[in-house]
């Protein structure tokens, strides 16, 4: 490989990049509504066993990712109770597929996403919700027209953090979805493999650089959107 195309990506590298973006995007898109709902319940609802739910949501944050991947394999593998049912009923196979990679990253990033949203939700003045109530708005109406728009910066922040975490997730993905080029081999997995391969140094370096660029782009983008939303919601 000569220096002229040192910065051009090989098709394998492009594949890893594209796959990473797809896996992360799907992971965020799928888990976002759940995260909003969970954040709302943890912030607003009062019910017995709330601490337990809170702990369960945050578990992936403290568990070794490999353990999360292993648990997913047990539950969602083709012989696992949920995986078996999904395969039988819908013909969906998660283990060792890119959809499975998305599931693994979603579970790992979920606590980060919920945290960001819950912080935003806690900052929304409940007095505003009370005011909306006295003006005739029912519970869902209040959530849709007051709470949700005001927590939008938190939803965005949560989404971006989760997207970044999904791009970088290694342990849970390799355990649950394995390391299949073009199917489940995301950037970190590709970098890992390149390092293990003789003469893979250049590839590893380029992929690492790519990861850094992606991370920066994400940060800048999130800052930009956060400002737009702040201006839009009139938050000071």
């Amino acid at each position: 490989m000569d220096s002229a195309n040192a910065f051009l990506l090989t098709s394998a590298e492009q594949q890893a990049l594209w796959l990473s973006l797809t896996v992360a995007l799907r992971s965020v898109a799928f888990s976002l509504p759940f995260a909003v709902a969970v954040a709302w319940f943890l912030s607003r609802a009062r019910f017995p066993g709330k601490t337990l739910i809170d702990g369960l949501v945050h578990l992936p944050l403290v568990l070794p990712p490999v353990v999360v991947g292993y648990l997913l394999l047990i539950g969602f593998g083709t012989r696992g109770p949920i995986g078996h049912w999904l395969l039988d009923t819908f013909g969906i196979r998660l283990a060792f597929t890119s959809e499975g990679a998305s599931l693994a990253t979603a579970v790992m990033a979920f606590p980060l996403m919920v945290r960001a949203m819950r912080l935003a939700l806690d900052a929304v003045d409940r007095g505003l919700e009370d005011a909306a109530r006295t003006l005739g708005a029912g519970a869902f109406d209040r959530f849709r027209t007051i709470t949700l728009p005001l927590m939008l910066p938190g939803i965005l922040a949560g989404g971006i953090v989760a997207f970044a975490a999904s791009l970088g997730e290694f342990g849970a993905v390799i355990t649950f979805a394995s390391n299949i080029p073009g199917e489940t081999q995301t950037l970190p997995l590709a970098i890992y493999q390149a390092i293990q391969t003789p003469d893979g140094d250049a590839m590893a370096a380029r992929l690492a650089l790519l990861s850094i660029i992606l991370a920066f782009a994400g940060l800048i983008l999130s800052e930009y959107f956060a400002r737009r939303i702040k201006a839009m919601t009139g938050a000071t």
Partner: protein
Amino acid sequence: MSDVAITKRLGTFTLDVAFEAGSGVTVLFGRSGAGKSTIVKAIAGLVNPDSGRIRIGNTILFDSDKRIDVPAQRRGAGVVFQDGRLFPHLTVRENLLYGFTRARGEKPIDLATVTGVLGLEELLARRPATLSGGERQRVAVGRALLAQPRVLLMDEPLASLDAARKDEVLPYLEALNAHFSIPVIYVTHDAGEVLRLASDVVLLANGTVAASGTLNAVTSRLDLPPEAEALGLGAVLEGRIDTHDASAGLTHVATPVGVFKVPLLAREPGTRVALRVNARDVAIALVRPEAISVQNMFDATVEEIRNPTPHVTRLALHTGEGRLLAELTADAARRLRLAPSSKVVALVKSVALAR
């Protein structure tokens, strides 16, 4: 007529109140911690009383015996909070229309009327963050009105404003009841607001009602309840504007006591006005003094004398067809040898009656 009778325990504090509210402005007056805001929240449905009954007009909103508890969003209680609570992500217009679009049935109060009465035309496109404190509260009042409420609840709406802003908003509040004929329940710890706005007063102390009634009934008793001391003793005279003397800058107001000269009022002759004459603004002489600045002098007969403290004397005076109250030092009363049925002259400065 509305009535509220509720109990609520909050830690060591117990609220146990019962009062009636008329169709005018009923002011709940008391120190902070007297339970005023809790009452407003209970009427609005944001706080659940332990027991009792809340009836606004013909509608029962809460009755613990009959297990009636109308949810807040269906109570039709327009609330103006101390901090305004405008929705920061919506424009003034969107804030104003938030309750309007959700109100059901006839909507006699429309956006044009409210923006006109409250002077909001210029603000409609703005965001709450760009409004001054006074503007914010006016928008909050408009938003509550446009929800077509059966009662307007105002929880210290001016408390977070400085004196200049208060004076900017007060005239709008004075105009509300006349314009929209919605009963108002108004919470404040500011005596000035009570005297300007109240038709009825409920004096609250330590979670109970110390006294209630029309402003006149509560503050014109010589045995003024201690909670009403902040309002001061005074008599409200129902008057009618007689003539304007523009060159002198005075308006003549005919009252049962006689004709008062007061600083020019911007109202048509024939308009009914209520003059509140504070007892402390009334001086007593035994003969009509000459060469004196005081514009209003009335021959009067002392009806009743009281000494609430050893150094203060309060007088009820019979004047013309009406009644005036005066508060003097006990020393002054002794020097004039005042006694029941003494003939005196009551003096009231015009500027003391400025609005």
